[in-house]
């Protein structure tokens, strides 16, 4: 009977692998997650860290590295 609840017909189908992220992800998911995190960190950086000095570029670089890590290992 559980079968009926299975098919979440969302636009994203999740047939992926399990990395360090707490769920199965495919490449697309991991890229999305990286982008989401990238934007979030950059915005927070602009708001809270940049007034103290370091330019947002550093934040962006950091996020790119993090993104690569997520895409490969997530």
């Amino acid at each position, binding site marked *: 009977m559980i079968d*009926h609840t299975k*098919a979440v*017909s*969302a*636009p*994203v*189908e999740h047939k992926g692998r399990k990395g360090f992220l707490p769920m199965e992800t495919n490449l*697309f998911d991991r890229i999305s997650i990286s982008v989401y995190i990238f934007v979030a960190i950059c915005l927070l950086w602009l708001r809270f860290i940049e007034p103290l000095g370091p330019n947002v570029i550093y934040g962006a670089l950091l996020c790119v590295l993090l993104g690569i890590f997520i895409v490969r290992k997530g």
Partner: protein
Amino acid sequence: MGKKRSNLGLIGTYILWTMMSIFTLLPIYWMVVVSARSRVELFSPGKFWQTTFYAQNYTNPLTSPAFQRYIANSLIIATSNALLVITLALFATYALSRWKLNGADNIFFWTITNRMAPAAAFILPLFLLFTRAFKLGDFMMFDTRIGLILLYCVFNLPFAIWLLKGIIDGIPIELDEAALVDGAGRWTILYRVILPLAAPGLAIAGILCWMFAWNEYLFAAALTSTRARTITTGLAEFVTVTGTNWGEMAAVATISLLPALIFLVFVQKYIVMGLTFGAVKE
């Protein structure tokens, strides 16, 4: 479950639904009342019932050729859009359902983003696209119906595909295979096997697309001038006519509601059948 209790439940249901109906109908009723009032009658707030009918509010727009053109445009745009969308969506969902197309699923998540973003900022690129990119001599896509039809596909297609996906997935693949064995081609399968089985879903998808196209305002206002104007933009025009012509505006709103109402009466049964978003297989 005694008989008594279900009777009580029934009465409760009726009370509930009568109240809901009043709540639903009140604004619509008031709109119709205002549409029956002349300008000098407007400011009489306590008057709940309307006995006179100021027909000019209706005859003025209805006899204006410009307004007739708006209605015609709206009908053509909405209908073509709905037909186009369900045709393409049928193809697309069939493809997604029967072939393994790497990455295709993910694409749709991105395309539905167009429906997520606030529309205003997207008007400028679309305007440029319509006036610059799609230009052939004197022809440009700005102020054409085809432009709006194609544009509305962007909003409706992902939605329709999403709605249909579960339904097509629910059609057993054995049917396809049996037909293939009988020597039928893919197209034959599509319209002889899939189409009839997916019909309720297609219908509801078509209706929802039709509604969206009929109701859309912002893009229609920005991307048309006079020729391809739709009824919703006509409605907005009435808001700014000097001395705000509330009566006529209400009349236009009432008129714009009618086709939808007719649709609703005929198809409301199928709405429930088709709206499952593929949650449950047959």
